[in-house]
């Protein structure tokens, strides 16, 4: 078995493949049918494993849900941090955040939908330690921008509404059939940059 792993370092063990299959199927099913629509039996069938296998990895549905939520946060944090420097300046940093978060939505659309669905759910125990590193980086980014005078002092919620709320709002239009202007709207580097310039101006001292 050891020789096997040496010759094929990329090869995953059978169990890992099953675990991933279960996880991805669960995410898919919860996004389309909701948490109530999911049962361990249904999931087992859809993932092509026995119910016992599911229980090896998860105690129950709630455990599964929390595990998925943590996975989404970890994946998001990993992508959000790509090439991001909390001390590299407000405009540059915010642009990197916007582009990375857009990448996340494009690469993992069901993760994004899942997060939207469950971030206010009482079923989630918000105790994921790994996400703290991301939160810490975001905090340093804002503190630094205030220290350098790039932005005025404000409540974090106000900052988020301007700096990220605006971005997510624009993105919503991109994924909708029609905007309130009764047309389809596409997010581009150009209009995103336009929005960023206005946000930076609004944040400025």
């Amino acid at each position, binding site marked *: 078995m050891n020789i096997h792993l040496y010759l094929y370092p990329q090869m995953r063990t059978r169990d890992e493949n099953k675990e991933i299959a279960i996880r991805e199927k669960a995410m898919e099913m919860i996004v389309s049918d909701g948490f109530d629509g999911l049962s361990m039996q249904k999931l087992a069938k859809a993932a092509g494993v026995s119910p*016992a296998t599911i*229980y090896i990895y998860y105690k*129950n549905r709630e455990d599964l849900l929390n595990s998925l939520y943590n996975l989404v946060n970890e994946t998001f944090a990993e992508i959000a941090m790509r090439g991001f420097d909390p001390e590299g300046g407000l405009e540059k940093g915010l642009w990197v955040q916007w582009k990375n978060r857009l990448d996340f939505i494009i690469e993992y659309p069901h993760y994004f939908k899942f997060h939207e669905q469950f971030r206010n759910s009482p079923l989630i125990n918000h105790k994921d330690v790994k996400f703290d590193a991301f939160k810490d980086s975001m905090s340093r980014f804002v503190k630094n921008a205030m220290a350098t005078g790039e932005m005025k002092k404000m409540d974090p919620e106000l900052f988020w509404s301007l700096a990220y709320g605006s971005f997510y709002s624009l993105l919503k239009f991109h994924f909708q059939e029609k905007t309130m202007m009764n047309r389809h709207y596409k997010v581009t580097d150009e209009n995103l940059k336009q929005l960023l310039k206005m946000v930076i101006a609004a944040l400025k001292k």
Partner: protein
Amino acid sequence: MNTPQHIHIFKTNIGTHEQKVAVLSVLESLAEVTEASVDLEDCDKVLRVVTSAGATTIQNLLTTSGIVCSDLP
């Protein structure tokens, strides 16, 4: 924990919350049992035990407590 841990999954006839609490307290009082949980939401009333003990040991223990359990297919 240095002793190898197994995860045993059983189908049971645990019906009520009281029974679940009773079963879990019996299991958790054992030194060999690291973790135990019961999923009452599932039709098979699945008992999941993380332990260094064998499946038969756990099964016998439950039987003496009046709980029927079998391997989950």
